[in-house]
């Protein structure tokens, strides 16, 4: 499976955010998207996730399930955690597992891996920002998707959480996954390709 783009242009609110962008990410590879604020990192991820229209150019996947779009094969971890404060930790995770289709590791294991075991009956309203992020990460583990789109995944995570995230990402790449991550800081992915936005880009 391979995710690729050529001559991609993004227009938001009548303003061109980026143009002529090209990249290719194959199975087991990670693409780290960097650039100043407003360079279009989040817009690029939202474009792959199908939330922002492709103004011109081509964005496509090769391989994978031919019946599914790139968005349907992707996990999107944005700035918002998609959690309901009045549902408990396990209810939140269980809903997404049942709605998105599961196929990953069991829920209890996912909660243990992200360090939220013992909190499963707590309403999500009482979680800290970092714990909310960890619960979102549990969704990536409990629901199987080959493409992970991560927007600032380390935000709100403590040092141990960031190390755990790096392990999870490496594990995902080892099992044939594919990651596109927007970030300002180091992610702990040694072999990642880098895509700098807002600078002259050579394909």
């Amino acid at each position, binding site marked *: 499976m391979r995710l690729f783009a050529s001559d991609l242009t993004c227009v938001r609110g009548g303003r061109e955010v980026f143009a002529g962008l090209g990249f290719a990410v194959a199975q087991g590879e990670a693409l780290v998207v960097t650039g100043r604020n407003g360079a279009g990192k989040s817009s690029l991820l939202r474009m792959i*996730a*199908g*939330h922002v*229209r492709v103004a011109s150019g081509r964005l496509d996947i090769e391989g994978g399930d031919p019946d599914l779009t790139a968005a349907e094969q992707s996990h*999107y971890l944005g700035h918002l955690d998609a959690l*309901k404060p*009045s549902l408990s930790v396990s*209810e939140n995770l269980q*809903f*997404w597992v049942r709605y998105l289709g599961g196929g990953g590791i069991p829920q209890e294991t996912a909660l243990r891996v992200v360090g939220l075991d013992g909190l499963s009956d707590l309403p999500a309203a009482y979680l800290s920002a970092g714990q909310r992020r960890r619960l979102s990460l549990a969704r990536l583990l409990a629901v199987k998707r080959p493409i992970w789109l991560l927007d600032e995944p380390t935000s709100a995570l403590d040092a141990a959480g960031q190390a755990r995230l790096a392990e999870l990402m490496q594990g995902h790449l080892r099992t044939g996954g594919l990651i596109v991550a927007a970030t300002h800081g180091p992610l702990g992915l040694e072999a990642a390709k880098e895509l700098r936005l807002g600078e002259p880009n050579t394909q």
Partner: protein
Amino acid sequence: MSALTALLVRDMRLAVRVGGGAFMGVLFFLMVVVMVPFAVGPEPALLQRIAPAILWLGALLASLLTLDRLLVSDQEDGSLDLIVMGRVPLELAVAVKALAHWLTTGLPLVMAAPVLGMMLNLNLRASIAVALTLLAGTPALTLIGLVGAALSVTLRRGGLLLAVLVLPLTIPILIFGVAASNDAVSGAMFGTTFTILCGLSLANVVIGPAAAALALRHAE
């Protein structure tokens, strides 16, 4: 199928928990009906004549009151992004959300209507008849509201715009709802007006989810 069941259960659970507002609509309905005699005077004959209209207006406003939470709460916390991205067809997902919304806000209005009807001097039979017209008509209100909610979902404070968008579209439902109620109260069995009301609801079952899904796909 289990994905849609999960969505239905989750939305109904959210509605009945803290901050869900499932019973706000029915309380508002009660308030409107209780205040009418203070406004128009407590003459039993007059109240009986306008009762179907009052019940329908109250139910219409009450169902409008809770509409703005239908999609906005999912938009605000990012859940809507994931629902749009999911493998479940968006039309079915929004239809299920509308169903959950109707079960927690529309159905309580229908169940409260016979009691409130008797407060307006309708007899039991007429009260139940009006409740049946509400049962046939309130799904259409929810589904029209679903389209309005999808159109205004990306706007901050879109609630007022939603009301302005949705109210004119509900006029046919109101006309045939009140007409069917009046027919029923005056002793005529459910006839043409009731059939048209059911038709309007069924048409909205088809159009509403498709239009809402289209609006959501184009929202950026």
